[in-house]
């Protein structure tokens, strides 16, 4: 109990003081070390090979019965013919009729969606679903197979083959007697909105802020255990991309991911991660770089918190789900419906074997290749090091407060209260701004587009916010005579807490944000040299949420259209439009699906940033 009962005041061992004296070197070492460590994780020697943790899955142990590939081919033709009659909509009646003909319990689900930024814009849609009642179950558990319907006019690649294979699988499953769980086949409209509405109706709860009127479902089939979402554009498929990033960066259980990879590979498909095949020689230098960039691509897409397919919406209901997206690359061996059907049948039968919900294996992991994984226990130490670099600085600042005792300086964290209150209110204003701005636009009949109003409004608000913070905010700090070191210590502590909290749900977001803001926030205190001061202001400006958004879209635009960098004006125009859209999507995703990125950035990150901004002008050093 020496820790609690040691009564000495003249604390601080000399070792600790030495440690603190070297904090600058140490914290930069921590920072660099953590990045190096992270990059190392992608190397084969530092991560582990995937394996099945849940024995009940018994992957690939059953004899495949699927031979309805001829049916699938007929369905493709029929759907194509039917779809051409509805260039914008979905042929509900046709799909429902097909389900009925197969003898499934077939229902149509109506839903309507209110656009959050304009109450007058209401869209409606219909999902069709059929339930295959299990002969050996009591309808208390089920599996879901879903396909988003895409009309011919859609810019996205079609999914007609997916519907065809689903229907033929349903026909095959109908005849089997081994189903212990019901299987629900869903065809959804309006991409993720339809899926979200269906899931909300299934669970009879809203996860966003009620802008989806999810309507009623006529029948259910118990708790959903797992779901597979199919995005198959055509019959001839060479590559299967397994997409797992869900809403808010949640991932499905690793066992499910492994299962899908294994069974598709067994049927001689090439499975990919973020549309990248595994490198043939992973132990080489090139292999390392290759898997590191795969890892980075995965992390970047996980960090946005936007689902990469309809599967991402299942996760928040505690359902393991992923999307299987097929594609054909020239020069590769293309497979047909038979193999595809056998692979999916194998997956469904493995899921049918499950004794209980997925609980083994990992929920928190990163993948550098399709068959390698980095578990939470492996990626947390480097992340801890990254956080540690900030914490170390905070502790050092706290300990050094006694070194030059200055009567004028205040080290009471509670005095930050007024500033925190101010910045939180600002954050809440930003959070509610999009709705207010668009309403203002409509009521004043300005006639501007939603994107322009929201983005322009945000830019203006940010300028006002910056000016306000560097005048009123700075005064707030100065009146209390808060030491700049104290404020910085608070910033570092709050940032590391926030980052740690984010890491619990979305490690990629936490790592990438930490990577960017940790060095910036560690210089967020006033300097006497004017030039250095403006440099610091400029650097801090770069990590303003809007700048970060712009930079992120800039990089993304460059990746999508690398050739347009030669025409800077056009390129920036494109980026500008993309940034506007990204902002709107962030706002809308928050209200539709409960994506918390916009909320967190405006009410948590922005106040922290403004604290740093104000501290640059803090007069009491």
């Amino acid at each position, binding site marked *: 109990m020496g820790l*609690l009962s040691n*009564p000495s*005041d*003249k*604390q601080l061992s000399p070792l600790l003081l030495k440690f603190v004296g070297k904090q600058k070197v140490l914290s930069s070492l921590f920072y660099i070390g953590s990045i190096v460590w992270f990059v190392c994780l992608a190397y084969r020697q530092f991560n582990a090979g995937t394996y099945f943790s849940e024995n009940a899955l018994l992957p690939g142990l059953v004899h495949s019965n699927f031979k309805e590939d001829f049916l699938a081919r007929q369905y493709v033709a029929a759907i194509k013919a039917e779809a051409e009659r509805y260039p914008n909509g979905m042929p509900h009646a046709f799909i429902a009729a097909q389900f009925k003909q197969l003898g499934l319990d077939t229902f149509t689900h109506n839903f309507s969606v209110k656009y959050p930024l304009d109450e007058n814009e209401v869209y409606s849609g219909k999902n069709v679903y059929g339930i295959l009642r299990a002969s050996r179950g009591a309808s208390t558990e089920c599996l879901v197979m879903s396909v988003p319907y895409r009309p011919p006019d859609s810019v996205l690649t079609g999914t007609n083959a997916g519907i065809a294979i689903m229907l033929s699988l349903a026909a095959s499953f109908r005849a089997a007697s081994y189903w212990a769980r019901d299987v629900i086949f869903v065809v959804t409209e309006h991409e993720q909105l339809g899926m979200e509405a269906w899931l909300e109706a299934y669970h009879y709860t809203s996860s966003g802020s009620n802008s989806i009127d999810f309507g009623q479902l006529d029948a259910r089939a118990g708790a959903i255990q797992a779901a597979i979402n199919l995005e198959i554009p055509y019959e001839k498929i060479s590559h299967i991309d397994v997409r797992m990033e869900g809403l808010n960066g949640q991932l499905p259980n690793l066992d499910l991911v492994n299962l899908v990879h294994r069974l598709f590979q067994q049927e001689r498909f090439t499975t990919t991660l973020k549309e990248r095949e595994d490198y043939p020689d992973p132990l080489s230098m090139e292999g390392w770089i290759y898997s590191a960039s795969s890892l980075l691509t995965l992390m970047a897409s996980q960090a946005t918190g936007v689902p990469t397919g309809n599967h991402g919406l299942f996760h*928040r209901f505690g359902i393991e789900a992923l999307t299987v997206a097929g594609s054909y690359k020239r020069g590769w061996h293309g497979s047909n419906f038979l193999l595809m059907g056998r692979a999916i049948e194998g997956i469904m039968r493995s899921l049918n074997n499950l004794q209980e919900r997925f609980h083994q294996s990992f929920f928190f992991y990163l993948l550098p290749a399709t068959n390698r994984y980095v578990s939470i226990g492996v990626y947390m130490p480097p992340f801890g090091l990254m956080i540690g670099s900030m914490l170390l600085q905070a502790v050092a600042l706290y300990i050094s407060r006694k070194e030059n005792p200055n009567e004028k300086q205040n080290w009471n964290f509670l005095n930050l209260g007024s500033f925190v*209150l101010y910045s939180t209110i600002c954050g809440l204003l930003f959070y509610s701004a999009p709705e207010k701005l668009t309403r203002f636009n409509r009521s004043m009949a300005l006639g501007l587009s939603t994107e322009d109003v929201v983005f322009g409004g945000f830019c203006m608000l940010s300028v006002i916010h910056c000016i306000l913070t560097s005048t009123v905010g700075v005064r707030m700090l100065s009146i209390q005579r808060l030491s700049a070191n104290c404020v910085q210590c608070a910033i570092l502590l709050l940032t590391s807490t926030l980052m*740690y909290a984010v890491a*619990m749900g979305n490690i990629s977001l936490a790592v990438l944000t930490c990577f960017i803001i940790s060095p910036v926030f560690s210089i967020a205190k006033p300097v006497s040299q004017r030039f250095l001061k403006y440099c610091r202001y400029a650097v801090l400006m770069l990590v303003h949420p809007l700048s970060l958004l712009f930079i992120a879209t800039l990089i993304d635009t460059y990746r999508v259209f690398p050739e347009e960098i030669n025409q800077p004006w056009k390129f920036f125009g494109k980026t500008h439009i993309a940034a506007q859209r990204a902002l709107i999507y962030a706002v809308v995703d928050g209200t539709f699906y409960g994506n918390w990125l916009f909320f967190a950035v405006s009410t948590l990150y922005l106040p922290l940033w403004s604290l740093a901004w104000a501290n640059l002008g803090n007069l009491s050093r």
Partner: protein
Amino acid sequence: MPSLWKSNALGVIIRAWLFNSGFHDSLSDRVEISTPLNSWKRVIEGAYLRQRSQSPYEGDVFHETPTGLVFYTYLLKLNFNVLQAVFILCDVLTAFVLTEATRIFFQDIVKDQQNKKKTYHKDAKKITLKKEEVAKVPQYVTAAYLLNPYIVCSCVAMTTTVFANLILSLTLLAMAKKSRLLSTCCLAFASHQSFYPVMLVVPIAIATAKEKQLFKSVFLTISSFALFTALLLGFSYHSTGSWRFIESTYGCILKVPDLTPNIGLFWYFFTEMFDHFYLFFTYVFQLNPFIYVIPLAIRFDDNVPLLSFTLCAIMAIFKSYPSIGDVGFYLALLPLWNHLVPYFRHSFIVGCIFLVTSVLSPILWYLWIYTGSANANFFFATTLAFATAQIFLLTDVLFAQAKYDYHLKHGIDLKINGKEGMLVLE
């Protein structure tokens, strides 16, 4: 006192805003705030059953006392907005009562120091308390109560801890005023509702004790407490017509049948427990908070404020169904130990742990219950860290007081033969 008004107004505004923005529903479902003993939903259920003239104690939902039930039945007749106002008002009242109590406590401490001045070292002047500070400290207490996020959440979630805290603060005030009758009466109410405050009878006995007739005074205190308790129990019996409520209220507190997770240490331990050890460990866990009472009373018999603060903290840490409303209550009393801050050793770490656990516990709860990707251990880890932080804080206060006392007697300088000395505990 202008800043007092500011903090009051701000506290009220924050509460009213939270009520109006619909935070009541989400907050009242949080396990950190609402426990089986204090949740408002259960009160509504109990009052409804009573109205249907069914005994609310037959089921396993309602655990408030019959006395409380009568009171809540009246409250529930109010309009919802008025009800919210009542909750806010109670919080403001508690803050004022606590402020008054700390003012008197602080005066006592200052007076006590002046009386003992002769026994102090000549250097001690630097660290003795000045009269100017007396005016300041109570203000901090008001702010610490009204702006305490734990208390705010507890109020907006409409937990009955709001009333428990009010009664507890009245007990402290009566104790500070050294009124035996009032303090035992309030204590009887407090312990009637949540049992654990029973241990506060010790500081009351010390506060009201007279030098000459020590035994008589202690006897009087205990017997008047017993009398009030008996009256309350009698009233409860009369209003329900049976003793069944004992099992549902005190039985629930002591036997811990409901293992819904909360911020305490009981639930995880007892879910893991084999049935035949259950009884034994219930005894162990329930004796734990009471074990500290006598040693602390012996050590700090001349410092009633510290003793009652410590006991409040011990209750909040070790009781069977703690909520953050209980934690916030004793945290609001911390400004009373402002003069001990230089002797704190762990304040930074404790502050950090409080911050981190408060942020992480809802997230880990979400990951465990909603998305199913984490498990109970994650949430338990935060509650364990939270309890550890509280224990660190408490021992820090106690040791700081001990060090402070030492410095008062032996001076600030610890030089032995010209070298820096070091305090060692033996």
